[in-house]
């Protein structure tokens, strides 16, 4: 191969210089530097890629010159992305997995416990941690606590603990025990349940127990009496483990678009044969009690048994995203929609008519529905009313009445599902 050595090549005439002919390959050897920093360079309409890493240093890409949809299957680093300017809109089948309030569970970090931090012999009730209801149907006895045992380095401060205090090694057929959260139908409409576009749901959570083995997590459609139940395994005793379960979307049965109970997510803890003698119902179907806890270990078979759960997240889609931590006040306000512990410290009324005095109580947050009032302490009140309206409190017809000496000190306001 002949070699031409010159310091400069310029056009013989005009301003155009051609190197090679159509079909030729122009090679710049390895280690050579192609310096066009002082020139205006026009690249061909199609840039042929090369192997190796190409670095674009201190340069700006003029987005207006990019052909629409020319960036496909972009691979972005698994770290935060800073967006400058307008909002991002999603099209096609894109989901809002990274959006705010993607967690359908309220208080999934177990941080709010208005009713107290410990409840012995917890029954069919909301015992300690807000929004988590225990359904105790005769399977041993348990103490429920808001516990400080949490997975290390995950950002959680609290967990919900169930510790067996009275064992039941031979459950009666109708015994059952589970922890659940119930959701309003009006908050679930975007799941498109009961349509051909029904969304899958994925639950993720941290769990720890001395009792290893198979556990069941259930989704139950309370509007249409349908359920789907899937299992997970606690592999190591006394060790925090994170679990993820995905449920297919249900194309049958729509959720009512109201403030009533439409869906629950339940952590099963044991049962009698009425609930475990069939085949685990791993696809959506009509309610079959015997298919709900098949294979589930009996957490009540020893007073040494316990389970801790935290970081519960239920979200649309087939993948679990990082737990969505909310500010404490936001989390608390979401819980207050369902329950509020009023401590008025001598809330006195005023004269209404004749010798009848009434006093109004304003709820901190508008309630889901007209609430039940209980655990009342005070003096000389004869009745309490929230007769009409009544989900706001205050002048919304929530009052207590009695004589001039009446006052209210404490009151539980319960609008739970």
């Amino acid at each position, binding site marked *: 191969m002949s070699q031409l050595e010159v310091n400069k090549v310029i056009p013989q005439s005009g301003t155009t210089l051609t190197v090679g002919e159509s079909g030729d390959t122009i090679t710049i050897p390895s280690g050579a530097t192609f310096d066009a920093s002082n020139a205006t360079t026009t690249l061909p309409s199609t840039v042929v890629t090369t192997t190796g890493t190409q670095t674009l240093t201190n340069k700006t890409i003029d987005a207006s010159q990019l052909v629409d949809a020319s960036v496909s299957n972009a691979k972005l680093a698994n770290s935060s992305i800073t967006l400058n300017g307008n909002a991002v809109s999603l099209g096609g089948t894109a989901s809002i997995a990274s959006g705010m309030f993607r967690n359908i569970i309220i208080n999934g970090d177990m941080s709010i416990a208005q009713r107290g931090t410990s409840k012995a012999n917890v029954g069919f009730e909301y015992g300690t941690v807000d929004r988590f209801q225990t359904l105790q149907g005769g399977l041993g006895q348990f103490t429920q606590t808001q516990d400080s045992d949490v997975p290390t380095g995950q950002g959680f401060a609290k967990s919900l603990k169930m510790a067996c205090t009275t064992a039941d090694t031979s459950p009666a057929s109708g015994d059952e025990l589970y922890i659940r959260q119930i959701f309003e139908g009006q908050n679930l409409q975007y799941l498109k349940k009961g349509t051909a576009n029904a969304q899958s749901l994925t639950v993720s959570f941290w769990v720890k127990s001395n009792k290893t083995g198979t556990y069941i997590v259930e989704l139950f459609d309370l509007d249409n009496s349908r359920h789907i139940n899937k299992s997970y395994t606690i592999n190591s005793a006394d060790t925090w483990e994170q679990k993820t379960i995905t449920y297919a979307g249900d194309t049958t049965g729509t959720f009512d678009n109201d403030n009533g109970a439409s869906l629950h997510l339940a952590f099963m803890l044991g049962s009698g044969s009425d609930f475990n003698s069939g085949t685990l119902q791993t696809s959506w179907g009509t309610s079959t009690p015997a298919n709900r806890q098949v294979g589930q270990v009996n957490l009540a078979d020893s007073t040494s048994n316990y389970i801790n759960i935290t970081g519960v997240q239920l979200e649309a889609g087939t993948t679990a995203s990082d737990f969505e931590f909310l500010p404490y006040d936001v989390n608390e306000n979401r819980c207050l929609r369902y329950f509020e512990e009023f401590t008025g410290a001598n809330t006195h009324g005023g004269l209404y008519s004749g010798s009848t005095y009434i006093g109004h109580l304003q709820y901190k947050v508008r309630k889901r529905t007209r609430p*039940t009032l*209980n655990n009342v302490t005070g003096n000389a009140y004869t*009745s309490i*009313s929230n*007769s009409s309206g009544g989900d706001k409190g205050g002048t919304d*017809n929530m009052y207590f009445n009695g004589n001039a000496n009446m006052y209210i000190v404490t009151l539980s306001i319960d609008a739970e599902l």
Partner: protein
Amino acid sequence: MNKENITSAEYIYDIHGHKGMIKVITNDNRYWVPNNAPENKDYQVIQEWIADGGTIIDNGA
């Protein structure tokens, strides 16, 4: 509130003379449940208790 624990239930009239609430006594607590509130879970329990034979006392306004 569990229907098994209900020992009595009584209508409570408001200052306008309406059956505003149902006072429910259970083994361990006293509840003021709004009347005609189908989305209230305790009202639902009372309906089940009535279906099982329970009767709400009505002493009038």
